[in-house]
């Protein structure tokens, strides 16, 4: 029996390819932050990089989703996200309103289009 069939192999994958591969960045972040001051120019730059990265993740989750969301047409996903964000603004930045409107548009559009 090869290692890949053993019950513990997925856990090795999770610890090495999951835990180490993610926490290494967090630990590097701790070491790299060193004596940086939170109001320094370097910090503004670092925060810009972090924010752009998270925004990239968001766009990918909408345009190239995993799982059941793939069944919704890409235009519906974009419109739902845009409506949610617009509602977030219109409600003076209430996250829960933005999320609720995004969901209503997605579900409404899904039913209107008669998807599975």
């Amino acid at each position, binding site marked *: 029996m090869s290692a890949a069939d053993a019950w513990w192999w997925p*856990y090795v*994958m*999770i*610890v090495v*390819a*999951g*835990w180490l*591969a*993610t*926490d290494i*960045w*967090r*630990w*590097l*972040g*701790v070491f790299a*932050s060193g004596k940086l001051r*939170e109001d320094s*120019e370097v910090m*503004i*730059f*670092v*925060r*810009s*990089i*972090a*924010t*752009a*990265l*998270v*925004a*990239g*993740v*968001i*766009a*990918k*989750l909408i*345009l*190239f989703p*995993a*799982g*059941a*969301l793939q*069944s*919704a047409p890409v235009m519906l996903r974009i419109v*739902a996200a845009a409506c*949610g*964000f617009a509602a*977030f603004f219109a409600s003076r*930045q209430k*996250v*829960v309103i*933005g*999320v609720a409107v*995004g*969901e209503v548009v997605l579900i409404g559009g*899904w*039913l209107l289009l008669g*998807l*599975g």
Partner: protein
Amino acid sequence: MPTPPSASPEPLPEHQPDGSTQLPSRVWVLRGVRAAVSIPALILAAAFVGYAGLARESGFTLGETLAMVGFVWALPSVVVLTGAITAGMGLVPAAIAVALASVRLMPMTMALMPVLRVEGKTRRWQLLAASHFVAVTAWVWAMRYLEEHPREARLPFFLGFGASLTIFVFCMTGAAYVLIDDMPLLPSAALFMLTPVYFLCSLWGAARISADKAAMAIGLVLGPLFHLYMPGLDLLWTGLVGGTLAYVGTRIARRGLR
């Protein structure tokens, strides 16, 4: 954002002019726990309920699913790991894929640590332990609210928030895995839509200056472009190029070409 932890009506009497605090750390841990009882926690838990369905469909056991949630914690990275294992990738390629999808955690942690740290007092191992809770929800909350509190309170406050959020989501994921046999397509899709819309709103909410907002707008555009034209390293490039453009552009707007 509802019930911000700072919304206590009475002024904070423990906030001394020198930034020290008279309250013991455990009080701030408990306040962090209380702050975690929040709409963002519910949204995140619901998103993980959707993930539990994906993990179950993909053939992961309950133990494996919970191990991924506990060890990795950042939801987008958890999804990448799930996909990598499902696709039968080897250990090293899977680790590279997950690592590339998780690069964002480093600048996020770098930005957070100076807020948490008390110069000359906070030990590095404490920051290393706290860093495991760095993921979008806790990070956005911390960047938005921690600075209102005395410096010595921030680390215990963040630990209380991060730990209780993780435990709550962990339990909800396990419960969803056990209780929901076969999730229909529509609810499942709706749960997967929660994460991006929630991240979109809360990331904007955490943006403090024009550089943050510019970085967000540029990242939204560059992310998919780099995904199509430079798959694999796309997020890394999105961060470096988008972050640099946003920083340089807004710096010129702020200070001119100096």
